[in-house]
């Protein structure tokens, strides 16, 4: 079953992605592919570039180099790939070396869910899901929640039903549990009509039962709805159980790409550089007694690129 999906061609193709924040190189020529109907997990230590790569794909960060192709269409760097997909898919473009600005053409929708979920807690669940449709609504139909067209609300209800929360539509998003909120965020991504769903540590803030539920949902979106799902995870165990392939990242590069039978050793190796760096930093700190500045800067840098 999984081989079928892979042979159908990559929905998302990332090629030679580079990104540096100041001196610090976060992505160093990262390449990977995700096919429709496939769940791919990204594992790696803090600072290995997992989140940054996803943020580059959706346009929240502007890559320094490399290409991002969604369903054969090049994404414009630094622009959100969810924008204005009016259905008119442009001609496939040959992957160009480096980053070149593309003319205004529609890109199939890429959606993202976040560790911190990022719903608007004061708004109702339904209104939060409707917000996924903003990219295809004119301002006159979206200036307020009161202006959302009925079709959009009906579509949002269908998306909520898909994640099993249709009965909570009129409740305030902030009143739901973490796991339910993350499912609402997935519904918002569906309302965006996403073909690619990126998940940045979607279950890191959730308890095991809720994690299980959200991961099952992602799995089923790939299996039953044919979405291409890429998830940054910090739990090798969940990655093994729910994904078709596991990508190991270290230093902004791909160090392994394997169908789920990853050895424990490979996973442990992934986190070893971080551990060594931590130990090295502590040793350096001990050597430079009295000065706390270097440690602080390392810590904040690590957090920033996590």
């Amino acid at each position, binding site marked *: 079953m999984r081989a079928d999906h892979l042979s159908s061609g990559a929905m998302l193709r990332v090629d030679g992605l580079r990104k540096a924040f100041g001196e610090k190189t976060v992505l160093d020529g990262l390449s990977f592919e995700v096919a429709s109907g496939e769940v791919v997990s990204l594992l790696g230590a803090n600072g290995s570039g997992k989140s940054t790569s996803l943020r580059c794909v959706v346009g*929240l960060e502007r890559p320094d180099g490399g290409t991002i192709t969604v369903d054969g269409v090049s994404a414009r760097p630094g622009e*959100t790939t*969810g924008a204005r997909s009016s259905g008119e898919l442009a001609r496939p473009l040959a992957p160009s070396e480096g980053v070149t600005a593309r003319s205004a053409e529609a890109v199939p*929708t890429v959606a*993202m869910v976040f560790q911190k979920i990022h719903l608007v807690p004061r708004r109702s669940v339904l209104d939060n899901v409707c*917000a996924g449709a903003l990219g295809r609504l004119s*301002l006159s139909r979206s*200036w307020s929640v009161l202006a959302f067209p009925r079709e959009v609300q009906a579509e949002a209800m269908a998306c909520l039903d898909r994640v099993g929360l249709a009965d909570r539509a009129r409740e305030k998003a902030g009143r739901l549990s973490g796991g339910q909120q993350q499912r609402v965020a997935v519904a*918002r991504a569906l309302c965006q009509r996403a073909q690619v769903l990126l998940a940045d540590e979607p279950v890191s803030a959730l308890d095991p039962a809720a994690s299980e539920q959200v991961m099952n949902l992602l799995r089923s979106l790939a299996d039953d709805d044919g979405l291409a799902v890429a998830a940054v995870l910090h739990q090798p165990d969940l990655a093994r159980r729910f994904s078709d392939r596991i990508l190991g990242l270290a230093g902004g590069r791909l160090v392994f790409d394997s169908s789920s039978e990853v050895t424990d050793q490979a996973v442990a190796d992934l986190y070893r550089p971080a551990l060594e760096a931590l130990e090295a930093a502590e040793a350096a700190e001990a050597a430079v007694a009295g000065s706390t500045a270097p440690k602080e800067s390392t810590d904040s840098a690590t957090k920033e690129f996590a």
Partner: protein
Amino acid sequence: MTGLTTAPRPRLDIPPRYRPAGIATGAVVAIALILVHWYAAVQTNTSPKELLEGWRGLWNFLFGVDRTYPNGKTIHQDGAFPLDLRWSETIRPGLEYCLLTIWIGLLGTTLSIPAALFFAVISSRTTNRFVPLWFLGRGVMSVLRAVPETVYALMFIAAVGFGAFPGVIALAIHNVAVMGKLWSEAMDEVDQGPVEALRVAGASPVQSAAHAVLPAVMPSLLGLLLYRFDTNVRSSVILGTVGAGGIGFFIKTEVDSFHFDTMMTYVCMVIVLIIVIDLFSAWLRKKVGTV
């Protein structure tokens, strides 16, 4: 208790709380501050001697004085106390003037909402990433804010004459700049997460403002609006003293005609008015769920 506690811990030096460089800097700053204040006191004739000499005048103002003129006649000049408590001549009109002051503050605040919202949205990094427009918004608000309400009031009184209306306009214009700045700062501090999430969904900046930023900051905006209403009622008292209507105008009129007792009655009414508005605004802000 266990083996863990038996090992003697090494004695370490306690790091000093203050460093010599820090103490030196502190001393320089303290001396500079003392010098500046001494110079300011000289320039403004502020001294205990002046206060003592002014004491007699203050006493006469508060409690009245008998003035004997060269022709031998003695005239009693009323002081501020006892208060003038005549109902129909002083207190009832005073209440009406207080209400007028509230109406000026209310309209001055409400009329400024649309423009303040506009400037807040274009002056917040969260809602406007187009730098030239951001600078324009900040610049316009800085200029508008640099002119005090009183000066606006004087200008509009010159244009349309004495009355409450120039006060309303003066407050509204000043408040656009002040409330716009407070609101834009509230928007700057909003959690960027939902904004990013909607950007990924393809929302335009205006759409993210309407669907991520405004819902999140609405309680803060309401709280700031109530706070500005409170402040604007105070300001409208001052605007009255330059001729822009309300209780302030009558405080000025009475003091100009040496009716210190009537003036002091109005001052007491202002104190009550301000405290009531303050309590009301605080209560409402609590209801709204901010502060």
